[in-house]
């Protein structure tokens, strides 16, 4: 079965410093992986997705993630945090290949950005 584990429930950084949100996945297949962001009182928004093309994936707002099969990881990074990045971030794996578009979410990492 597909699953993801987000290794940190809370991450706190200062504005202008790098962001690292960690995610490990478990999959019986070659996975499709995503990062979603959830701002307070707003809907979930797709940041980026990996679908077996380039292992370094660039997303919106300066975020990127690297797929590492040997480490079963898909960590999210950003070189310089902005106050507006404060939100909840979810690592997501697609259910079994083919079939329907089922997403399996991790528990989330809350990112706090301090001035």
């Amino acid at each position, binding site marked *: 079965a597909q699953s993801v584990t987000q290794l940190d429930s809370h991450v706190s950084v200062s504005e202008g410093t790098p962001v690292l949100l960690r995610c490990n996945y478990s999959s019986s297949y070659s996975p499709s992986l995503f990062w979603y962001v959830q701002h307070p009182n707003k809907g*979930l928004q797709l940041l980026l997705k990996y679908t077996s093309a380039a292992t370094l994936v660039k997303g919106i707002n300066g975020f990127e993630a690297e797929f590492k099969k040997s480490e079963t990881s898909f960590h999210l990074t950003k070189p310089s945090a902005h106050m507006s990045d404060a939100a909840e971030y979810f690592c997501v794996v697609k259910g079994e290949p083919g079939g*329907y578009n089922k997403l399996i979410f991790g*528990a989330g990492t809350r990112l706090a950005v301090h001035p």
Partner: protein
Amino acid sequence: EAGVAQSPRYKIIEKRQSVAFWCNPISGHATLYWYQQILGQGPKLLIQFQNNGVVDDSQLPKDRFSAERLKGVDSTLKIQPAKLEDSAVYLCASSSMGTLQEQYFGPGTRLTVT
């Protein structure tokens, strides 16, 4: 382009009462999803529709939860009777048909059961 609409945004009910949530997906999206997000957890898929038909309801507690999608557009999710553990945010999402299509999420309905 209008996004996914949900109503109400907030609902407070007592246990054993019933409640219904409404979702209007993005125009033209054939696939509609209902997720349950309990505080401190990631969203969990409850049910997925493709046009009028249900394609996955494996995690829907069918003894108390029901959902329908009228004419392949709007959808309602109902809980009857509600339990305390149903307190959560209920998210609706929609996408074009096909695998790996981006899912667009609505703002959610926050349900509190007292």
